[in-house]
């Protein structure tokens, strides 16, 4: 039996996909609001940014966890994505708005 056939793993994958989708839609809406010069473009962009930085950490952490030792070693890129994901919380991306 594959590990993805276990609910403990499958549910994590479902949640990861759901969180990515949630963040993506919020980001698209924020971008659309900036294009429209919408009055809450600023706060929406802030929410999208904050949400995405959290999401990136949750999802990459889960990915490392699911792969176990294989997620932790540098032979595979997953631990790198987790490290790279950590950077977003410290970037001052909001300067562009």
């Amino acid at each position, binding site marked *: 039996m594959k590990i993805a*056939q276990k609910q403990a793993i*499958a*549910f994590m*994958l*479902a949640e990861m996909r*759901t969180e990515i989708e949630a963040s993506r839609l*919020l980001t698209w809406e924020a971008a659309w609001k900036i294009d429209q010069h919408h009055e809450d473009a600023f706060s929406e962009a802030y*929410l999208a940014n904050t949400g995405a930085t959290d999401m990136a950490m949750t999802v990459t952490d889960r990915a490392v966890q699911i792969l176990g030792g294989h997620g932790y070693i540098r032979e595979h890129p997953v631990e790198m994505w987790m490290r790279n994901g950590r950077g977003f919380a410290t970037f001052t991306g909001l300067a562009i708005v």
Partner: protein
Amino acid sequence: MPIEFEAPKPIANQQFVLKTVAEEMMRSRSRYFDEHEHEIPFDYIEFMQTVKRATGAGSLVPREEKKEEDPNKPKRPPIGYQMLAHIAEALAWGDVGMYLCTPGGMLGAAAVQAAGTPEQKEKFLTRFLGEKPVFDAMCMTEAGAGSDTSAIRTSAVLDKATNEWVLNGEKIFVTAGDKSLTPYEKFDNGFIVVWATLDPKAGRAGMRAFVVEAGTPGVRVEKLEHKLGIRCSDTATIVLQDARVPFDHILGSPTIATDTSKGFKGAMATFDATRPLVAAGGIGVARAALEFVKEKLAENGVVIRHGLPRQKLTSIERDVIDMEIMLKSAWLMIIKAVWMADNRKSNALESSMSKVKAGDVTTKITQKVVEILGPLGYSREFLAEKWFRDAKITDIYEGTGQINRLVVARQILEYSGKDLR
């Protein structure tokens, strides 16, 4: 295709009316109906029937577009389900229990809409446009079959002598079962859609849905549940004892009546359509709670400073911002799922994801709101504690959070029900 985040005009135009109904008819009596479980909000129901006849508002079944073909007029994209999501959200913001009492097409009608033939739609759905309110219900769950619907044991046997189906079994947790079956003077006859098996050995492939009219001999409401929340909405146990229904009350084309080799996708098709709408109701409750706590914080001089880095925010600011992120992104997932349903795109993944997310965020947000408000949150003086109780149902009915996670996982892994149980 360009992405559009503006609500279509017909939807935007009705927001004000919905808010007024939610405030005047629902919010003001929210506490009363919470404390008087099993009382029926007749005046809300009758008011909504009038509104519904004029506008089509409130039903889980989108109105068929009128077929007036004017070649000069540009074709508008279909927005039926999107409209319903907005209505569910706005009315649940008023009171979700009362919203569930909105007459004229809930889950039973949604099943007829999703799986019925044109003749069946004509026969069962036109009654909702009459003068008196009509209710309908979906009977799926049994004492021995919850999320594992293939374990359903209610049976349907064809009596060849009379060409009738004979139904036997007991259904529990039927939303609006009482209003659909009990002959209240102020309502017209409703119906229930009963899921039964033609062959218990066939598992899910043997399952079919039958429309059972109110007043059918052998059908009775056995009891009504007392619940944590959505107390205004009745939850019934229904017993079927040699209940006879005409042959053509089996949902779908007649050939599905005999061939159990192929499964009947009707139930799942219904869920794809209704899950985002149920999720939208949850979002309405969460928005009510979030708006309330923001109002109370503002009254107490707390300003939420959007734009500051996390480390400069107070704990309450972080909580409020996190709740805003959850609420907005969950809502967008619903809008995407209903947009896909309107445009006849397969939305099993998006529909279940929107329900997973909404179940999570409505329970988290309402719980956090109770926490931030402290004694005010826990007290029955305000509605925060009630919203906290109401919210939890979002993660349970129309597929629990776990079942929807299963559906999502199967979709993204391309697994069958056998690969991932």
